[in-house]
């Protein structure tokens, strides 16, 4: 425990880490402030765009009503007449709902708006049948499911499910993507992946050898202390972000549906896990980051025992992360990406049950895969450092 405390203190007080944490914290503060300020405008724009969307739909329905009424005047066939009358009745019903929606938005009654939206969606299936599997049908079914979920959970609707303003939703829609962006992954790697390499550069292993401290044990402690310190920072900054957004926009509900999608070049944009509660997604994503940080730290340790240079370690990891984000959608990579560890660095994608990976098991398999690889990397590093000499003479 005393070695762990020592390494933890060393990691936290290290000048480079302090600068990096200050840089990351500044980025997050700037982003939070920007996000908080701009969200009021975004919310206004959301409402405006909702009104515009409904008005456009209503205009289109009114045009259809006029066309149908004119057709009715000219038609002579009885069957066609009945058909047109049915269509006219449906269109008038739709128009009525749209008008109510505009009125609901006018008084900021978002719950009523979505209640009416469900009626419109259900009307569509009543008119067109329930058998089609077109993209629009899938979307409308998902939308009905989302609306029903919010109503069943007795919650107030967000104006836009994909742009939730309250803290629980905003956290995973705005903050987690930042933490798991390539830039932040590389910044985290700059702290945790080079721990072993810097011990070669600063020759501190010589001190450990002198003090009779086991180098293998020390390597594991270094990786764990760096991982835990970085993870603790992630938790603290997450809490701060959550509180700031919560105080400004409201906290929202833990069990509000997250409206999570699986966005993939091959399969397109699918609403795969829209009912998962925001709270579980927030917490799950943050906890998953522990595995990501541990993976980066142990991968760094493995590279370090070979190259012994921190800049090379950061360079290699940055190349992996940035390179994979660029070529991840190349056809031959797509076919093997479920085996590539870098596919499992973004918890939000994994919670979206991506069909390109392991569907609803992706998050569990991802955590298990990263953890197994981390342990393997550590074991190899420990084995190498055990048999390593500063140099050999012959």
């Amino acid at each position: 425990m005393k070695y762990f405390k020592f390494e933890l203190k060393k990691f936290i007080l290290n000048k480079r880490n302090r600068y990096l944490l200050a840089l990351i914290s500044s980025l997050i503060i700037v982003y939070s402030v920007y996000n908080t300020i701009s969200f009021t405008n975004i919310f206004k724009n959301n409402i405006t765009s909702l009104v515009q969307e409904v008005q456009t739909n209503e205009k289109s329905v009114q045009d259809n009503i006029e066309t149908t009424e004119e057709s009715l005047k000219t038609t002579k066939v009885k069957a066609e007449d009945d058909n047109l009358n049915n269509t006219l009745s449906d269109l008038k019903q739709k128009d009525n709902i749209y008008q109510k929606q505009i009125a609901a938005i006018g008084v900021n009654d978002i719950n009523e708006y979505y209640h009416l939206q469900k009626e419109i969606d259900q009307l569509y299936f009543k008119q067109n049948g329930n058998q089609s599997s077109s993209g629009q049908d899938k979307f409308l079914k998902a939308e009905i499911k989302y609306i029903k979920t919010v109503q069943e959970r007795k919650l107030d609707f967000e104006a836009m499910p994909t742009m939730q303003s309250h803290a629980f939703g905003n956290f995973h829609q705005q903050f987690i993507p930042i933490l798991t962006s390539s830039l932040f992954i590389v910044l985290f790697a700059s702290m945790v992946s080079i721990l072993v390499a810097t011990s070669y550069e600063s020759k501190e292993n010589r001190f450990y050898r002198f003090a009779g401290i086991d180098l293998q044990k020390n390597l594991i402690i270094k990786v764990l202390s760096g991982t835990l310190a970085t993870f603790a920072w992630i938790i603290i900054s997450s809490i701060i972000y959550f509180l700031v957004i919560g105080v400004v926009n409201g906290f929202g509900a833990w069990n509000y549906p997250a409206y999570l999608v699986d966005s993939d070049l091959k399969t397109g944009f699918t609403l795969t896990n829209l009912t998962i509660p925001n709270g579980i997604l927030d917490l799950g994503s943050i906890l998953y980051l522990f595995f990501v940080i541990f993976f980066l730290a142990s991968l760094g340790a493995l590279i370090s025992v070979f190259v012994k240079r921190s800049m090379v370690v950061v360079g290699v990891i940055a190349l992996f992360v940035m390179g994979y984000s660029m070529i991840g959608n190349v056809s031959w990579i797509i076919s093997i990406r479920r085996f590539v560890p870098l596919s499992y660095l973004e918890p939000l994608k994994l919670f979206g049950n991506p069909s390109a990976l392991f569907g609803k098991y992706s998050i569990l398999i991802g955590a298990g895969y990263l953890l197994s690889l981390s342990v393997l990397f550590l074991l190899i590093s420990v084995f190498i450092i055990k048999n390593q000499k500063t140099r050999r003479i012959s």
Partner: protein
Amino acid sequence: MILKIKNLKIPDIAPLNFEISENGLYGLIGRNGIGKSTLFGILSGEIGFSQGEIENGRVAYLPDVESFEESLKMHDYFKILKNSEQDRARELSLTFGADKFAKKRIGQFSLGMKELFATILSFSIDCDILIIDELFSGLDVSKKALVYEEVKKIAQEKIVLLTSHNLKEIEHFCDQAYLLSEKGLTLVTNFDEAAKEIGYMDVFF
């Protein structure tokens, strides 16, 4: 404790055969680059070798005073030592007056402070053989006197190998001194001849 080196091959030096069977303070001299630090590295297990045999106990060798984390303090390092070593380190820091800079971060230490800190650590470590490689060169005279007084006490309990470019110190304080040269390791019986051999000029005395 015994230190026994048999037929150890270091580049450009004849195979080393060397044995110390009694505790004491032993000086090791030799010109720059001859291989003193390499020999110490081999003894501490830091450097691998392919020819020869070494018989020794636990060797403590701190080759570099720049390997400490600059953001930490002296006591942070003391805390990771064994309890008995910690007590000794605290005691020695009082003896050497190092407690005065205990609140400073190591990054703020002068070379002399770093050397004194490394000396305290070296004297505190439980080991059978202690190697002191040019550790006292930055210490002022008053501190040096205290340090040599202490090292003499330690040398009664373990084998202490000391190297310094100041031959006068080696001659004055060590029980025996050895010269490392191309011919191997030889016992120094005449310091003037050894000084000539390594090109030592006592210009400052």
